[in-house]
């Protein structure tokens, strides 16, 4: 806990953290100071003047809250008439050349300018001269579409490119009312975090080409989730909506602030990984190319178990800890060797020093924590002896090429338990559909050994089962989540003091 100091806001005493600027310090206790250019990740810039607050006694009478550290005994004025006039006038100034095309703007509904106008301004435009027109719908590259007219020149995007990604593609060119954000001709946005500028932009100047016009933001339900794109496990907001007569679909992933894991941002690849949740999903069980019910699929697999001479179970490193523990007990029940072989998930040299990791498996640390062997030799040895391979959503095609996979599927019977209808699982003798990571609750351990839990975010019309439930149906002994968690506690010692609901939302650093 940081040191606490006391100061006054509008005459009321509040206790805030020391060492922060006024926006963050007072914002933490729920009092909002309007701001456009300030962003905690990018620091203060002080160009928008929206956050000007009054100080009684000592110091200048007007200070930008973003640049002013909170100090003991400070008397901050937020609702004085002259402060209200400043906010009112700043907004009128920002809106002089703003096209006010909220109806077609994707930001409408989550736009600071819109919200502030409603809260602090609310007047009609007094301008009689024609507005300055600028370019619209400019392709900045990396799926970022820019509208210069809507821009309030807060410079967040420019600072993001210079400070965070250090690629500096964006700049504010020209001056006065013709100033605009632009790329240098021939050098468009080219970094793996570029779409974050869309989230950063307080107005609708930056829009994502991927999300553009797909949904109005107020229709969408927002749930917390954890990205399974790599072993970083970035926190995300899952924006989804069930449109009339349709299935629940995810429309975008947005970064969710988590200081321990990802800060304020996520990479573009992870952001776009929502598509896998919507497309190419396996919805029905299949026995040698014919669709069957789940009950029949379970009976068929139990028959396969009896017939098989030796079973080997392969588990995906994307599974949650609960799923791993259920499958592990299933393997023990069947007396089958369990392997987490997933060398294909590691892309050497793909990671960077910021968020992206080489290892594209979300929960490899979980495999280690549960003592599941994932060496190639052990897997291949076990496979050579077995007649039946049960593959729990492990994408073998990342490691083996097609011909060796074909050979494998010819020699062995294969049961695939998967959420995606990929080529690999189309070759399997029997496939059983399971939920994908946005559709179940669970916990994973990331590359920094931080355990994060997440809850089911969306429920499809025909909601497939969780993989641990499938494991239970196939004869696994852990039937309920309670059982799974108890077993988990026995293996992972550092979880002993915690229950699923006492694990902090920001993640638990395992020792």
């Amino acid at each position: 806990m940081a040191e606490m100091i006391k100061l006054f806001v509008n005459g009321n005493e509040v206790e805030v953290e020391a060492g922060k600027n006024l926006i963050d310090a007072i914002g933490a206790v729920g009092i909002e100071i309007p701001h456009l250019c300030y962003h905690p990740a990018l620091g203060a810039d002080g160009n928008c003047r929206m956050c000007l607050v009054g100080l009684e006694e000592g110091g200048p009478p007007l200070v930008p809250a973003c640049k002013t550290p909170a100090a003991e005994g400070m008397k901050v004025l937020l609702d004085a008439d002259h402060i209200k006039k400043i906010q009112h006038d700043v907004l009128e100034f920002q809106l002089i050349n703003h096209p006010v095309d909220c109806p077609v703007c994707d930001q409408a509904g989550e736009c600071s300018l819109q919200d502030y106008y409603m809260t602090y301004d609310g007047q009609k435009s007094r301008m009689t001269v024609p507005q300055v027109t600028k370019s619209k719908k400019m392709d900045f590259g990396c799926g970022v579409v820019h509208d210069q007219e809507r821009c309030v020149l807060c410079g967040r995007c420019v600072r993001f490119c210079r400070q965070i990604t250090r690629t500096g593609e964006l700049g504010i060119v020209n001056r006065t009312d013709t100033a605009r954000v632009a790329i240098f001709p021939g050098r468009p946005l080219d970094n793996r975090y570029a779409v974050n500028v869309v989230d950063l932009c307080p107005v609708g100047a930056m829009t994502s080409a991927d999300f553009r016009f797909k949904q109005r933001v107020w229709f969408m339900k927002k749930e917390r989730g954890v990205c399974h794109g790599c072993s970083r496990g970035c926190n995300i907001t899952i924006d989804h909506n069930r449109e009339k007569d349709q299935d629940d679909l995810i429309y975008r992933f947005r970064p969710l602030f988590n200081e321990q894991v990802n800060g304020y941002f996520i990479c573009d690849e992870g952001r776009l990984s929502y598509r896998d949740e919507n497309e190419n999903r396996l919805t029905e069980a299949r026995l040698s190319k014919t669709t069957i019910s789940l009950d029949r699929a379970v009976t068929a697999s139990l028959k396969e178990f009896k017939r098989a001479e030796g079973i080997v179970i392969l588990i995906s490193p994307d599974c949650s800890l609960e799923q791993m523990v259920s499958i592990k007990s299933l393997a023990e029940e069947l007396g089958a060797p369990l392997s987490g072989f997933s060398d294909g998930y590691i892309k050497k040299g793909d990671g960077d020093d910021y968020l992206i990791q080489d290892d594209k498996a979300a929960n490899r640390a979980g495999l280690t924590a549960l003592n599941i062997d994932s060496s190639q030799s052990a897997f291949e040895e076990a496979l050579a002896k077995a007649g039946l391979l049960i593959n729990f959503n492990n994408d073998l095609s990342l490691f083996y090429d097609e011909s060796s996979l074909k050979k494998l599927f010819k020699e062995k019977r294969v049961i695939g338990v998967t959420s995606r209808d990929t080529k690999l699982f189309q070759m399997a003798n029997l496939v059983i559909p399971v939920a994908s990571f946005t559709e179940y609750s669970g916990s994973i351990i990331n590359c920094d050994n931080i355990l994060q839990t997440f809850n089911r975010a969306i429920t499809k019309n025909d909601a497939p089962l969780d993989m641990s439930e499938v494991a239970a149906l196939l004869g696994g002994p852990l039937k309920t989540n309670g059982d799974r968690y108890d077993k988990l506690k026995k293996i992972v010692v550092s979880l002993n003091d915690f229950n699923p609901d006492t694990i902090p939302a920001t993640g638990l650093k395992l020792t």
Partner: protein
Amino acid sequence: MSDRSQLISTGEPFKFDQERDTEFERLIKRYPERESMILPALWLTQEQEGWISAEAIAYIADRIGTFASKVFECATFYTMYHLHPMGKYHICVCRTLSCWLRDKQAIVDYLRDEIGIEPGQKSEDGKFSLEEVECLGHCGTAPVVQINGEFHEEMDVEKLTALLAELN
């Protein structure tokens, strides 16, 4: 104020000539940070070419080792940097208060009639370009006209006629 963000590309790579290269290397030592070199480098370019092309900006950015967007920002911010080719004689007429009161409009009107160009344009033969600029700092001797960096003070139409005849 007009939009200056549309850069013109020559299609040919830009490079400082020998003289500017040495000058650049000499100047860069004077600044603690290399980025401070942006404005002098832009001046050098304008000296060499008369205007600054997209390639020149890219070259400067790479030479200094900064983002092209930063050089772009600077070049578009300052109106003294010409982002398109100028006439052989670039005539700047001050339009700020003192000059305006001392009838700078007569000068502009005369030039418009004589050369046939509006402020901001270049004559067809490429000889003259005209621009109205903000205060040139010679208010005591207004109105003032600057031709290729050379000041002509207390200007009137007669003086200008003589001057144009000289230039022609």
